[in-house]
């Protein structure tokens, strides 16, 4: 099998928690705590989980906006986890990110043309005329008129601004785009337009996505495989259809039944989890989910379940971090 585009091995990103008057480190926030995942070329890995599960920290660590504490980030076989800023720069062309809120991620004082051209200038791509042509090409690719280049971000709606962010992110022809909740700030009628754009760009440019979102129905639609995260760890990983059709982890099962389905003839009988997500600063012992799991036993409180393969579809294993089979 060829080298995967991205391979995370036991990746951890911890933050010190400071307290007291001297702001000494009093604890550790284990936001990402030993994650191993792979993204294949031209494919989409969906990453779902609730707030505080570490999915955004994981995304930012992959593009090295945050420093990993341990583990490796293999991009085309090369470990980029410890690379210096200078050595990292050429890799920025290959690895880009799209954020949730384009109003915050786009500098409002620059024209759209400048914003999209900026990555090209930073990396010294082409002449001024070539760059201008590339900007027009990118605008067309994301479904905006060439006249948009002269305008400012505030002149656009949320959906159009997300198109601008995407044009900027793909300007250098990356192989991997990390998308952190890219449609959750958008209106329902605009979400599907942007999801279609992601699908079109993947088909045309062979882009791979690490698609981070909390909406399982959206993630399933765009993903080839899905990983479910809880308190910094992967609870379940499988091909997208397999995960939705036959979730094996009690957390995934609860997550799927908790989604309100827009079909009143199928009001679901749901497993309602009690309580909230515990803090990653002092996560529960054993299985991190045992405090909310309806099936938890003594073993779950003491022994942390490892991700194990329970089934396989093609080359994609169905991995579950649970002591039991459900």
């Amino acid at each position, binding site marked *: 099998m060829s080298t995967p585009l991205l391979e995370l091995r036991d990746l951890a990103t911890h933050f010190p928690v400071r307290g007291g008057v001297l702001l000494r480190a009093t604890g550790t926030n284990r936001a990402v705590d030993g994650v191993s995942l792979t993204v294949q070329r031209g494919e989409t890995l969906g990453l779902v989980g609730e707030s505080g599960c570490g999915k955004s920290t994981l995304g930012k660590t992959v593009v090295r906006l945050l420093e990993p504490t341990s583990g490796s980030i293999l991009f085309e076989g090369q470990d980029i986890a410890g690379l210096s800023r200078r050595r990292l720069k050429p890799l920025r062309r290959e690895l880009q990110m799209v954020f949730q809120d384009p109003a915050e991620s786009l500098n409002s004082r620059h024209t759209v043309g400048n914003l999209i051209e900026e990555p090209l200038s930073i990396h010294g791509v082409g002449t001024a005329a070539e760059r201008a042509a590339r900007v027009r090409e990118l605008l067309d690719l994301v479904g905006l008129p060439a006249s948009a280049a002269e305008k400012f971000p505030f002149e656009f709606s949320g959906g159009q601004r997300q198109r601008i962010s995407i044009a900027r992110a793909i300007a250098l022809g990356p192989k991997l785009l990390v998308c952190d909740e890219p449609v959750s700030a958008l209106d329902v009628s605009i979400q599907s337009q942007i999801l279609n754009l992601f699908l079109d760009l993947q088909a045309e440019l062979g882009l791979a996505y690490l698609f981070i979102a909390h909406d399982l129905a959206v993630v399933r639609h765009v993903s080839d495989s899905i990983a479910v995260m809880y308190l910094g760890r992967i609870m379940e990983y499988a091909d997208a259809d397999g995960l939705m059709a036959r979730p094996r982890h009690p957390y995934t099962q609860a997550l799927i039944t908790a989604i309100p389905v827009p079909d009143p003839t199928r009001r679901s009988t749901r497993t*309602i989890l009690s309580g909230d997500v515990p803090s990653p600063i002092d996560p529960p012992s054993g299985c991190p989910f045992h405090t909310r799991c309806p099936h938890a036993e003594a073993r779950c409180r003491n022994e942390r379940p490892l991700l194990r393969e329970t089934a396989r579809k093609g080359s994609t294993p169905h991995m579950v971090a649970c002591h039991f089979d459900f």
Partner: protein
Amino acid sequence: MSQQALLEVRGLVTAFDTEGGRVRAVDRVDFSLERGRTLGIVGESGCGKSVTALSIMRLLPQPMGQILAGTIHFEGTDLVSADQSTLHRIRGGRIGMIFQEPMTALNPVHRIGRQIAESLILHKGIERRAALERAVDMLERVGIPAPEVRLSEYPHQLSGGMRQRVMIAIALACDPALLIADEPTTALDVTVQAQILELIAKLRSETGMGVMLITHDLGVIAEQCDDVVVMYAGRVAEQASVAELFARPRHPYTRGLLDSIPHLETPRKSRLPTIAGMVPTLKDLPDGCRFNNRCPHADDRCRREQPPLSRAGDGHLVACHHWQRIAGEVRT
């Protein structure tokens, strides 16, 4: 039917004075809500769903927001013409409210117990000690563990889901006849959203109150509501029972919305049907039907004439000139 309606909104027009002139955020909206039922109001940003709620509660930002026309009958009182003392009696007493972000609705410097007791002292005229005892009961009813301990805590000590439970306890402390919930679960995680929605449904069936649930999520509407009003750009596009609306959506906007949501049965990675263009801002609303610039069925008449709400079935109203013609068309 209209005699028994708990809440009846007729011809409501709410406008805001902005730098660019006066804009009508809500434009001739009609609907009613019966006791013991949940009415969902669904729509995208700027459709007027929250302004409708603020108009009912007479909590529009002053002096920019004004009700220009219409009536809002609630338990025999027209809230549009009611004086301030009547409104004080009704708000928090007969009508409870919960909002999207409980942290901004709760007072950060007051203990939980005091915030629940406050409305009881004000509306029920009971003394502080008895009000605090009632507050413990309320916290227990909304599923907060160790309510005696929580009583003396501050909002920041609670999680988002717990804060929303406290908001519900405050809203329901005085046994309101109507609960208005504006995006009550939008800021919460799905597993916590499921808890809160179940709690609201349970309390509704216990108390027989009416619930007006405002949301952008058609899934929440399908699971939680009896009736639904679909709003678009300040007007009612369609209104029906939930079963009827999802089985036979008549307005092209409703149909477009339902089609554009990925379902678990949608083939993965297939292109999703979309609604062209974007939600218009209140400053540049098209003439005639406000959906005409995004509608695949629009013709000259739609660009000229505002379609009235017409009957499309039992209790089913739709504001479209062409609903009969497009009803037979297969949805994508």
